[in-house]
């Protein structure tokens, strides 16, 4: 088993995300995260999928993605040759000044920033690798997580190649 990032260029049109996610369900792939957004080509979107899987399952997932008519290109991204990031918004309970200071300091340590404060809460934004976000969450959980939203991983290979 290993952690895998798969990047797919797909046609930018209605119904494509459904076809991709429907295939995952129909073929029993248990993916960890999925993010989708526009690319440099207005006709294409990029879907980035992460999955904890062994080699056979990962290969099958890539092949089944390629088999979809709307999927133009699929690449497995090696983590050491890839920049991959996820954005998380974490809203924490922060009633007393001590916890507020601690949360702000921790956020700074993780390169995050405070994006909203209210009387009883602080919202922190962190953009990093999923394991860093997990680590931050682990450190602040005891303050009380009110809400949490993560985007799933976006990724591009390092270097000059455009694939």
């Amino acid at each position, binding site marked *: 088993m290993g952690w895998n990032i798969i990047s797919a260029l797909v*046609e930018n049109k209605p119904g494509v995300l459904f076809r991709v996610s429907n295939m995952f369900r129909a073929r029993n792939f248990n993916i960890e995260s999925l993010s989708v957004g526009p690319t440099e080509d207005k006709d294409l979107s990029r879907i980035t999928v992460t999955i904890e899987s062994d080699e056979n399952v990962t290969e099958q997932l890539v092949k089944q993605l390629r088999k979809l*008519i709307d999927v133009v290109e699929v690449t497995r991204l090696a983590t050491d040759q890839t920049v991959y990031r996820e954005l998380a918004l974490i809203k924490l309970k922060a009633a007393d000044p001590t916890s507020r200071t601690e949360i702000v300091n921790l956020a700074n340590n993780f390169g995050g920033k405070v994006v909203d404060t209210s009387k009883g809460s602080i919202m922190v934004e962190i953009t990093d690798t999923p394991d860093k976000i997990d680590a931050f969450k682990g450190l602040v959980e005891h303050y009380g997580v009110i809400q949490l939203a993560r985007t799933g991983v976006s990724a591009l290979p390092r270097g000059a190649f455009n694939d």
Partner: protein
Amino acid sequence: MVELSGSKALMQALEKEGVDIIFGMPGGANLPMYDELYSSNIRHILVRHEQSAAHMADGYGRIKRKPGVCFATSGPGATNLVTGIGTAYMDSAPVVAVTGQVPKAMIGRDAFQECDIVGICASITKYCFQPKSATEIPETIKKAFYLAESGRPGPVLVDIPKDVQQEVKDISFPEFVKIRGYSPHVDPDISKMGEAVELLLNAERPMIMAGGGVHISSAFPELQALAELLMIPVVTTFKGKGAFPENHPLALGPIGMHGHAEANKLIIESDVLLAIGARFSDRSVGKFDEFGQRMKIIHIDIDPAEIGKNKSVDVPLVGDVKASLRALIKMLMMRIAKKEQETAWFKHIKEVREYYQSSIKDASRDITARKSLKKLRELLPAESIVTTEVGQCQMWASLHFDIIQPGTFFSSTGLGTMGFGFPASIGAKAARPDVHVVDIAGDGSFNMTENSLAVSVQDNLPVIVFLMNNYSLGMVAQWQRLFYNRRYMGIDLKATPDFVKLAEAYGAQGIRAQSMDELDKAIKVALKSDVATVIDILIDPEEDVYPFVAPGTGLKDMIVAG
């Protein structure tokens, strides 16, 4: 550019694709299409249930090797197609299904006879289209046909909202279409072929497993040439049945849950297996992990996603079966003249085959399924087309009815759809009116789509229904007999109609056969008739299908007889 309504554009696009026949049923949401059919030269076959329309298109498409077309209205018309579309998908059959949809403005509002057929069919089609403007229709149809028949074929759905059918627009018809994310792997993969050649030449106990891909690619001569060149025995999957003449000395017959005993026994003993256009289904190879642990596997398939899906293989050769076999034969020809026949493997094969064939015993009863099928084979010309229903009748057909001329056997092998065989035989007859078409049937399965008798009679598509009648859901009964301690539940069909009278009620011919003599006469009468004939053959409800590889077990655990 020319001003046309969406439905006129549809009909012209279908004509440009060479469509000469459509199986379908009209309804509210596809009336504009039917209005255009009125003035078209395309022949329309009116079905009595949309499921049968899809099966007919499937049967037609498998034989013509180009998409069969079916029409249905929105909502229930479309959902009735689903079983037929799923059947075509699992057997990689080219079908283009065109459904009417409620007008665009009504979509998503739970309108009368609205259903999300595009969503429903997503995982049982190669692709689903829903053109949003009449201008998109010609390109959509061209893409639908291209997808359905190229690469690994399959069904494609085109769902057209009623207002799109009706609107008049400036329409142009493209000569070519390009689909950015679709390029079938047709060329043979030469890079790994040398490895395959070495494995095959050095094998001590080689075996070929021919699958449905040999049919789809029409690679019968290539398969036979390769088998004869290397003197490799050939088993088939059930879908591959008839890819290789079953009276050929190298033919061992289908493997699998109800495969030939010698085929099941010998395939797991082979040291090099050449799998051709096959997908290692559970039904063929039993337990995935157990199958082929000690053999090297070469796998030819046009669909890269089949490589390693169920079984990891040693030499994958992605490409069209026919082209790949030609390349492989060419490379082999440079290396050898002809392999000799007197190997230890061949001696062993001969012994195993003789052992199992001498162990087959017929029941004492005068008329049995096995004897009936042997009789049918004796009287039916080799070029005749045979379809089957699903259940015991299907497995008996696999076991006891040899296909002599490759490419004449069609069955719902993947989805296992009861009710497939009869409408598929009508579709086959529409594709090949010059040959006899026989549906090898059981009472339970035929019962599901028997109303297609009306179609057969009305549209003059006479087929023979070879109905082995045991007044029960025989295969389920057999499982209950074997695995559920004879606790029979839900298998008794004693109120099954009198099939002779039923046939006559539809204006067809019905003949009952209660002895081998009567059967002999009935088949001869049927072969001379120009109307659909149901031969109602009364067999013993306790006649079981053997061999049997129980689900979840391996081929080595095959139960040879009851």
